[in-house]
């Protein structure tokens, strides 16, 4: 991890943590896109970002460098009724600038997102991550997520994913599918390659 020992960089708790604001799309969105797409083999279109931010901007948190307001880290999520019958949160994107990794910034962002979803009465939170993404697995599992499924060739690049799940409420497992919403799919997350190495 380059720069981890660079003492001039602000530590995790010296950063500014802010919620996304739709009114500032022009300032924030290009930076978010740039940060996220660094770790993708292919870019998401701007509509993917807008899909999340337009509807769940309040579940997007950013870590900013207080000195120049540059974007250091971001988490993007959504929360809506799921076909399985639960009110389900989904963490769609998470990234921290490479030079700032390993100092709890992502952890803090994810905690903020979880708190926000819990406050809005989410039953559970799910996400997918590559089976080889040790940092991400460690981060989420430390917070309480468990692996619920292994998804063979989940990503476009042929890599396999774990589905991680965090229950927030008792009785979540017994909620019943909403027939109106059609079958429950395993392959309906983003299904995008998440790290550069694995392209």
């Amino acid at each position, binding site marked *: 991890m380059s720069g981890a020992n660079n003492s001039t960089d602000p530590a995790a708790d010296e950063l500014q943590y802010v919620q996304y604001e739709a009114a500032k799309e022009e300032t924030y969105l290009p930076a978010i896109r740039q940060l996220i797409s660094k770790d993708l083999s292919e870019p998401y279109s701007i509509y*993917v970002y807008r899909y999340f931010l337009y509807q769940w901007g309040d579940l997007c948190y950013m870590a900013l460098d207080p000195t120049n307001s540059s974007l250091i880290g971001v988490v993007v999520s959504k929360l809506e009724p799921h076909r399985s019958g639960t009110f389900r949160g989904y963490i769609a994107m998470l990234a921290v600038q490479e030079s700032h990794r390993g100092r709890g910034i992502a952890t803090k962002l994810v905690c903020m997102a979880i708190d926000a979803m819990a406050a809005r009465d989410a039953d559970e939170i799910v996400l997918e991550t590559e089976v080889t993404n040790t940092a991400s697995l460690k981060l989420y599992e430390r917070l309480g997520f468990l692996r619920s499924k292994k998804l063979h060739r989940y990503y476009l690049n042929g890599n396999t994913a774990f589905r991680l799940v965090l229950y927030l409420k008792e009785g979540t497992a017994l909620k019943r599918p909403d027939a109106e919403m059609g079958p429950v799919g395993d392959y309906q997350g983003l299904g995008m390659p998440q790290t550069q190495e694995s392209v």
Partner: protein
Amino acid sequence: MAEDQTGPATASELPPDTIAAVDGAGPSRHVPAEPPRPSVGLPLRQQLKHQPAAPQARVHDITEKFTKASSALNVGQLVKDEFFTLFESIGALEIMDPKMDSGFLQPGEALEDACDTVAPLLPEELIGILDQLLCYEMAWHTGYPLSQTLFTSVYIDRLLWPEPRTLEQAQFYRGPIPDERRPGLMLEVLRSYCLALVKCCDFVIAKITGRDYFEEEDFCTHTYSRVLFTQMPMDVFQRELDAAIERLQDGTEMEIDPTVRDAIIARLNFRKDFLSALDLECSLDFIDRYWPPVIANLDPINTTHQLGKAVPGAFSFKIQRRLASTVPPRPTVELDFSDAFSKLKQLCTDGEEAVRVMSLDPDPLEYQSFLWAFASRKPTPLPYSRSYLCTLLFQESSVSIPLSDLKSLVFPCSTILDPSNWALSPPRNPMMPKPHRLRLAHLIDEFVERAGQAYLDFWTALGQNRCRLRRMLNHVIIGWDQLQHDAGFVDDDLMRVVGEMGIQDQVIPFPLTTWTYHKKLWMIEKIVLLGFEQDIYLPDEYAGMYLFLSSVSRRRNALLQTVLDHFHDRRSALLHSDAHADAQEVQDGAQYITSLLHEASGIRDLSLALSGFYTTLLYLRLIPRPTRPFSTPQLRDELRMKPFLTLTPQEMFPFPDLQAQILPYGAYDAPDSRLWEDLRGEEYWRDIEGHIKGAKEAFAQVKKLGAKAARAGGVEGAWGKEVQGVLASCVALGVEVAGVRRAVGWGEGGEGEVRTKVKVEIPGEGGRYSGGWVVGRVGRL
């Protein structure tokens, strides 16, 4: 990116039945732009024939309307309607973005790579192209779309587009061509090879989509509106290859180095045999003769690969721009020749292995073992091979599958399954009661029919990739749970008839329920073991999950004990009435039950020992325990038990029981003082060691009884290895438990001190004797 996302429309058009719907196994990826997947059983080729013509484009000028409408908005203001879903957003493209807009050209860039597909080729270049095609073909087999693999070939592109109406029209050029430009021998050879290669793809797609259920994530069936000679019979492709081989052998047309020529011929021969092996209508009578010649052709290809000369211009990434697809071009998938070759070899040897299913005893239990062993092969068989096996199996099975499975488990030599029951006719007068035996036959028919779908789902699961197998079993057991419920009613009726006949002592109580429950428990055990194999559980969950496994296998063991007692009773009764042949049959059948019984008790004991081992490690704080600020043990238990929550009878432990068992000394970081007394005593370890010993003995019995008794005679080798792996795990666990015990004895200082002396490492799947049996390694620091 959109290609691998199902729009909601597609999702709701899935066949509304079966597990596909529940698992959502749903083709969520690589969904063709064509109509959605055909309903169950209808091969895609059917569908290709009826592909609707693309609607005529009509142009509307919307500039004015658009300008007017947008004047009502502020700059930068977003509008979104409720039909714009995540899938649309992922499928959306940004015009003028070079990575997304397939029509976007860099300054000076041409839309297509120029390639003269009738320019003469050197023999070495031909080899280079053929081998590169093989690489792309194998990349496709491993799950990448044709657009990023074979369809990057400019030659294949020419053959298939514009769509030729006859094979004659499928050329590297279209329309008239001056004689001096006519393709020479090398190009003709290439053409024959490409034609056959395309036909191979057609067969592969048809075979895979012909299954009721297949995994979209494993294999991409999209053909981008190209028709892969679906309508043309195989022999015309064979003839093209034959003609090419003949011209090469003749040798008068062109001077070729004999080594190079032989290398080319080997490739043509391979293609010919491979095509025959893939043929959908290949003869079942000679099914064992297809793969050996293909395999014999492989080495000559491998050893002559270096003769080839690469022709990069024969492939173009830009062809994707012209394929009917809504997604931007994606990078060509490059698979090394050596990797491609080993995939090919694997495909062929798996094909050869799959054929052996035809020579098995016609016994569903043998088939089940075969399916299990096939799915456990390493490397894991490719999707084509799995479809190939399932196609063979499903067309073979004329025996009533559930019936003969029932017979093996609960109806040894029984009046209930006496074939003569089915020969009786109902009384003329409908007011008269039906004969008892006929009623038995009807009840069994009713149940067998009811069980059919559950059985099929079970086998279908066994034919999936291992990740999906585990997920699918979670759903299959729900079907079996319902079946068990229904079996109860049929059992009541059955027992009533049996009672009236006065033969209660010949029948095990609740036979159908017993059979169904046994199968369900077996599947639950597999779900947990697959969970360990796939690293679904975190180390601090091991103690609880192995405990759950031991409780499930304990129940199965108890069930089997009743069954075995029944077999013994039957045998005594038959001997008593001098029915020696029948008694012998029952005795033979009891071998199977005995084998199952030992297996179940082995699983029970080994998992109990592991649960004890990991509980100990938790108290010694040798296993990491995440802090988990957002979760509670109860919520995690609920998540873990989700697949089993609705089962009857209840399989999981009520939460307080579970806690009591995996936290016998209170919290791991504040255990009560008895812990250290016990750890330094004898009894604590005697328990764990006793379970290990019990497991070892049980699996040794299973091994001794042999593959035939376990109804795995057809896969004796693989079965033996599996049993051996479990036995080795028992031994390894013994060693590690001794290691922990020694470490505990070293000092007086408690767990803190132990932690300074030893550490525990959890081996990855490759480092285990058996994937589902995770034995942590205790090492000195």
